């Protein structure tokens, strides 16, 4: 016979773990939906400062959660600059010096191409699913959708600079908001979906903005202009050879 207090214990534990399961699933679904199995996008990246602003065009290929390639096409000064990511490794290529440079791990928190995205932001893939515990903070009804607010806290031993992240995810897997808090619980960066629309045959966040919270008017926006999902790439797409010597 099972002692009665165990039932109580089970009653107390079950809902919590179920919620945690739910929360993790919500995050996983959102990440998988956005990256899909493969993707190809064309976008314009705008870096904005209080007294200054600058736009660049880029093309990006991704495969699964671990491989991606970004190549800049304009302005002329930046055309040809490219970044390749494979797992936790990142390489940068500049046609001006015709050389591939591997980004050292200690530099991963640095800004990528002068934007408000860090190298880490680009290489983390589905870390937010695998290296974090998740908790559903609340869910609200808005514009005919349910918005889930999920708190994600990295494992003790995860190599993550953030103390906590809070994601707002719509019930159709679209990430509306992603907030980054430091170890002291201060809000540092915020990624928000500014425009949601049809692209590449599905509904995605077409325009996203990464903002530094403590600095006014400091943000980087990525506006997607074309997208394709679940397409085939040649095997060689995510190789150093392709990075420094484009085949297409």
């Amino acid at each position, binding site marked *: 016979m099972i002692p009665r207090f165990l039932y109580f214990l089970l009653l107390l534990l079950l809902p919590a773990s179920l919620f945690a399961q739910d929360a993790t699933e919500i995050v996983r679904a959102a990440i998988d939906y956005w990256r899909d199995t493969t993707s190809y996008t064309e976008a314009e990246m705008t*870096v904005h400062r209080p007294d200054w602003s600058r736009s660049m065009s880029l093309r990006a290929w991704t495969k699964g959660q671990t491989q991606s390639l970004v190549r800049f096409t304009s*302005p002329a*000064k*930046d055309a040809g600059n490219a970044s390749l990511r494979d797992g936790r490794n990142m390489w940068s290529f*500049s046609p001006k010096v015709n050389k591939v*440079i591997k980004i*050292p791990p*200690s530099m991963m928190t*640095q800004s990528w191409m002068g934007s408000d995205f860090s190298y880490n932001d680009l290489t983390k893939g589905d870390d937010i699913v695998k290296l974090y515990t998740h908790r559903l903070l609340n869910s609200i009804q808005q514009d005919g959708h349910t918005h889930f607010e999920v708190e994600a806290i990295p494992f003790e031993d995860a190599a993550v600079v953030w103390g906590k992240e809070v994601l707002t995810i719509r019930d159709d897997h679209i990430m509306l908001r992603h907030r980054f808090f430091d170890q002291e619980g201060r809000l540092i960066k915020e990624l928000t979906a500014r425009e949601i629309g049809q692209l590449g045959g599905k509904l995605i966040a077409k325009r996203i903005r990464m903002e530094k919270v403590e*600095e006014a008017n400091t943000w980087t926006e990525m506006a997607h202009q074309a997208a394709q999902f679940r397409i085939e790439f040649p095997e060689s797409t995510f190789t150093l050879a392709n990075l420094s010597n484009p085949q297409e």
Partner: protein
Amino acid sequence: MITKLAWRNLWRHKRRTLLSVVGIGFAVAVLQFFMGIQLKSYDSAINASVSLYYGHLQIQPEGYLDDPEVRKVLAAPQALLGSLKSITDVKAAALRASSFALLSSEDRTYGAQIVGVEFDNEPHVSSIPGVIRQGVFFTSADAQQIIMGRALADNLRLRVGDSVTILGQSRDGSLAAMVLPLAGIFESGSRDLDRNIVEMPLRTFQENFGMEGAAHNIVVRARSASSLESLRGEISRIISRSYPNPGTLAPPVVLTWEELLPGLKESIELDMSFGWLFYFSLILVVTLSVANTLLMSVLERVREFGVMMSLGATPKRVAGLIVVESLLLGFLGVLIGTAFGVAVLRYYGVHGFSIPGTEEFLKIWNIPGAVFPEITFAVVSIAPCVLLLTVLLATIYPVCKVMRLTPVQALHAV
């Protein structure tokens, strides 16, 4: 007469007096020695950091210190530099521009600060050009070359003449990429600088990073480190004259080394507070033992004071006697202590004082392993003054006791 009497009184108990004198003397000598070492090592730490790279003052764009972005620039640096050189307190000044960048050799990549320095002016504000151990500090003012510290060169496995690929950010936000040969390797003695600083001629930097003649800061070497605040005021006035309406563009700010190197200032302050704690306890112990001696000598002579008073000495006079006695004691101790302290300071001033095992720690702040204390007025005078004062304080209680005595009471005392 009183002085003579006091002097004789002192030597009635030779051993006790000598012990007190030695106590005071020891405290004075120890205080002088430690203060000499302490002040000198702060001085050399500051001097080393200041003259090595940072300068006494730096003029930077507003907000550059907290977030050094390449696009935050000094608009017309040459004009400002020119007017700085007309200030008499300015020994030298030089323009710099810098950007964080990735440096890559054949198979290794490290991040470092790339600094564009003026070929002609830099040697007057920084000692790095003087500590090039291999190669040269550029062949000309627009040479397409870089120099770096030994630690970084070792990390990248580079030798003089090897090519380095540099990826950084230009002023307009685009990627600055270049391949330049390593012209020289410096050993500044500071691990931080040897690992993180890469220099190239300012013109080369401006060209490669799209600076269009702009710079990021002006490094100022002052004639004297003691009047930095007034120099800062003077420079600020010059700046505000050239920025008549600050509403449109924030004028540059003038920062002292204390603001540029907050870590150095903090560690000096921390060290100083430990120093004071030590000095305070030393002074307290000496004061208490001197007070004890004086009190004893008063208490055992109550009868004698009674006799003096009966013969017409006022309590004030007797009190005066005690004060003179203790002052004599104090002066004697201070004299002997100072003689000893100065001798020790002079010895180490020539031979250098080093604490075994601290060299590594000191290296972080560019402090040479051995300290050569200097005999300055502050070092020599503070300890004697403080001790004379505390000896005087120590007489307050015995004097109060004497002032309350009446001849009859005193004569009946044991």
